């Protein structure tokens, strides 16, 4: 355990203002640490990693790490990532998005990136709310939960990101939480090395905007909730069925080896170039 914090400090940009912008108890900081540990564990050089981030709290992540980073327009992080990956397939492109960024504004891009199976790692930090803009109801807010725009409880059902990405054709789909940091390290490092489109949904509590409106007294309560309301998907009898007690399955939901779009594209290019000669 001796070198974890030192390692993270090595990967941060120390000319930026620290401590970082996330609220006290926000899970995004834990995910940032987990991402850095995963990249370090894989032994990737800093110059070979591209971090593309959209707008929102999660978008601040690209500011702090010393990789190649792009801070893009709202919801369009995956489109920028697609372009980067097609132009230089050697790079490991990690796309950090929030739930509003990935599902509402960039929902179209998410399902089409999954359909194309482009070799990008999408890290979706799901805090169930639009945190940065003041706590409006997002498409991942669970039904009945209170937000700034739904003071009597949300009437709409929430998206199940893992199910949606699985249906859209992503080749690696996993879900973790920022409470289970060691499992999250494993999920993110597997996702980065996976050839096709890989999605890791991370439950990252928002104590400021979501927690205090929904009867969580503080950040610790939210992490205790994550601890007691999640279940490892390996321990379920039928992984396709949701648990009857309402707990949230975490773990790897799909892991198939399929060539990514950039691999298929360069194979086609090689074939056509060979024919012309």
């Amino acid at each position, binding site marked *: 355990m*001796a*070198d974890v*914090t030192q390692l993270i400090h090595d990967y941060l940009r120390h000319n930026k203002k620290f*401590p970082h912008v996330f609220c006290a*108890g926000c899970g995004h900081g834990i995910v940032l640490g987990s991402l850095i540990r995963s990249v370090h564990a894989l032994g990737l050089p800093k110059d070979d990693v591209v971090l593309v981030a959209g707008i929102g709290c999660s978008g601040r992540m690209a500011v702090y790490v010393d990789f190649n980073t792009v801070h893009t327009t709202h919801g369009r992080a995956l489109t920028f990532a697609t372009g980067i990956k097609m132009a230089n397939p050697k790079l490991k492109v990690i796309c950090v998005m929030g739930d509003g960024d990935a599902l509402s504004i960039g929902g179209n891009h998410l399902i089409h990136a999954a359909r194309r199976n482009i070799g990008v790692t999408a890290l979706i930090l799901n805090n169930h709310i639009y945190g940065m803009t003041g706590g409006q109801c997002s498409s991942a807010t669970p039904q009945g939960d209170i937000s700034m725009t739904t003071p009597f409880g949300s009437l709409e059902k929430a998206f199940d990101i893992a199910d949606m990405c699985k249906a859209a054709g992503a080749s690696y789909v996993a879900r973790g939480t920022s409470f289970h940091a060691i499992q999250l390290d494993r999920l993110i490092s597997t996702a980065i090395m996976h050839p096709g489109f890989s999605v890791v949904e991370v439950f990252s509590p928002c*104590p400021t905007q979501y927690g205090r409106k929904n009867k969580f007294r503080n950040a*610790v309560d939210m992490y205790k909730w994550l601890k007691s309301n999640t279940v490892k998907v390996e321990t379920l009898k039928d992984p396709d069925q949701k648990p009857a007690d309402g707990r949230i399955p975490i773990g790897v939901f799909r892991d198939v080896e399929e060539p990514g779009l950039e691999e298929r594209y360069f194979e086609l290019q090689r074939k056509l170039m060979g024919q012309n000669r």
Partner: protein
Amino acid sequence: MSKKQKGQTRVCVYPDWCKGCGLCVAFCPAKVLVLNAFGKAEVAHEDECINCGFCELHCPDFAIAIKPRTRNGAAQPDPRSGWSDPENEHGRASPPVRTAEPNPNPEE
């Protein structure tokens, strides 16, 4: 991490980076940390630390470092230089320690 021995570590909290979320205090299995009057994490019972690493992995602000202790009880200056536990001196396998190796060929 595998050995649950107490008193092997120094727990260092950087107060400038701590935001006082209380995660380390609430989840520490040995109750090493407390929140002080300023609302920041503080080390109260360092000798109880079992080096599980929860606080270091889960601190959202990267404000806690667990460092191995040297024999005189101080935290090691460079955490990556490895452990300097007594086992090392008995010739058992353990991570490398940066020590001045005696030169096998003194004439060179």
